[in-house]
């Protein structure tokens, strides 16, 4: 049975409209006009227990709004949401024990105190006994390699260490469903990798379900078997990453190294030119005509070397969002 069920979910916000200039400001102060903004529109999906799902979309696409409806922070305008068998917005105690929310740009740890103090508060709030607390903390500390960091004031930790400590605080109650909003935001590559590895291990060890948003494609490719693509509030893709490339990038890059340079006019008949750099030429070729084109290139040009690659996922997704392609 799916652990997350979302059916025809929508959210409309009233947003105040303000004209520029002093006149507009005065009018805004006295009489506000509101315009409804459709943040999320008729989104449906389901997530099975133990899945790691990536939630992708440009800024303002409705990712965070959806996460907030799933965690019960905001009330949906329309549609049905069930998480672990609960209606999130009621925020039942049982529901709150089963979920967690981590936000990369907000922190719950007390700034001036060691993280351990904040953890103790969380333990008391969630009713975790001392012995169990010690055990869980030592386990998570080891998984996150945070040794000896928990007794330093949070303000003295590096950004990466702080994020790990945040994760520890968010996972102390062993939630089944993890909602992660940009958990690697601003981290350096090493820290990103260790957060990623940790999430993967946590997922496997506890069979936890993870829904994460990230701007770093590497997070998504490393962790998620499945991605949800949201654009202007609408779900435009739901499936695995390979399928995404098939669907949105029906072309391959053919890189050819020639014996001697050719002019662009000579090269153009073989396919769409992506770049020409001396003897190195890159073509974009539709998948359907790939074999034919490669055969023609080999027959008619002096080829030293030839490789065919899939375009990188970042590029495909970027293209999807720029063009606003809707499947």
């Amino acid at each position, binding site marked *: 049975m799916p652990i997350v069920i979302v059916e025809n979910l929508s959210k409309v916000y009233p947003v105040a409209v303000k004209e520029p200039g002093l006149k507009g400001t005065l009018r805004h102060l006295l009489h506000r006009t509101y315009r409804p903004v459709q943040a999320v529109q008729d989104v449906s999906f389901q997530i099975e227990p133990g899945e790691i799902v990536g939630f992708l979309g440009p800024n303002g696409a409705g990712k965070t709004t959806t996460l907030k409806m799933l965690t019960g*922070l905001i009330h949906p305008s329309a549609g049905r949401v069930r998480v672990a068998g609960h209606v999130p917005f009621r925020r039942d105690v049982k529901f*709150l024990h089963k979920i967690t929310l981590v936000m990369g740009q907000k922190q719950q740890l*007390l700034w001036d*105190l060691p993280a351990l103090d904040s953890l103790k508060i*969380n333990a*008391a*709030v969630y009713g975790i006994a001392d012995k169990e607390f010690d055990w869980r903390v030592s386990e998570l500390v080891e998984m996150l390699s945070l040794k000896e960091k928990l007794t330093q004031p949070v303000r003295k930790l590096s950004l990466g260490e702080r994020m790990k400590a945040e994760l520890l605080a968010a996972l102390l109650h062993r939630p089944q469903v993890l909602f992660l909003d940009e958990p690697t935001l601003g981290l350096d590559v090493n820290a990103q990798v260790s957060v990623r590895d940790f999430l993967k291990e946590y997922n496997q060890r506890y069979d936890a379900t993870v829904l994460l948003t990230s701007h770093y494609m590497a997070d998504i490719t490393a962790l998620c078997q499945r991605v949800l693509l949201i654009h202007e509030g609408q779900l435009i893709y739901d499936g695995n990453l390979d399928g995404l490339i098939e669907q949105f990038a029906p072309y391959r890059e053919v890189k050819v190294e020639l014996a001697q340079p050719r002019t662009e006019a000579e090269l153009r008949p073989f396919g769409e030119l992506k770049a020409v750099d001396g003897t190195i030429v890159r073509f974009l070729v539709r998948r359907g005509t790939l074999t034919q084109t490669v055969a023609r290139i080999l027959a008619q040009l002096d080829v030293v070397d030839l490789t065919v690659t899939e375009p990188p996922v970042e590029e495909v997704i970027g293209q999807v969002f720029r063009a606003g392609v809707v499947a």
Partner: protein
Amino acid sequence: MKRYLEVLGLFWSTAIAAELEYRANFLIALLSSLGNLIGSLFGLSLFYRTGYNFEGWSWEETLVVLGIFTLLQGFSSTFLSPNLNKIVQQVQQGTLDFVLLKPISSQFWLSTRTLSPWGLPDLIFGLVLIGYAGQQLGLGLSNYLFSIIPLIFGLASLYSLWFMLGATSIWFVKIYNVTEVLRGLLEAGRYPMVAYPAAYRFFFTFVIPVAFLTTIPAEAMLRRAELSWVTGAGFLALGLLYATRAFWKFALRFYTSASS
């Protein structure tokens, strides 16, 4: 209940630990509280020096009111303002999200999360002042005990008003000033209510119930309070506490949480 007490203990011990990271604050709080007290004593003495009396209040009796007022100020700066003024900040920064997702009453969390030891000087000076005036007036233990009941009612009312004002930040987001307005109005509690013209007295009794905060507890201490006023204070406190709870639940329905 036991869990709430345990959480409260942790809240306060961590808050004190965090505040003590900044030691110079304590000296400043001490000086500012002393300065305030001397200022109000001087102001009062100007009235009484020339033989003028607030209707039915002798110098020492007025000092009781001032003492209770100082105590109340200490209470606000220890327990109320560090928490309730932070609601605005939490709404603005969106960290309220974390509070709402904890399996514990969010009103409890927001009201008790921290405490500031810098209200301590006010609490001490208030007690000293009451003790001094009480000694002059020959007050006994029962007098002090009597005043505790209306004092608790007063504190509950003050908390409720303050919390509701803080909770309006759910709609208005930036309202740092609103709690300052409340604080300003509370200043009226420095003197017995009879010091004010009738219209003000009405306002400070029925609109912003300042009278219930200082004058009535002082009257109870002096064994002059009418039972009806003390029960009135009780009903007011219970009513406001209940209203606060309802208002918070209502406000949360409008919470959209700050966008990232």
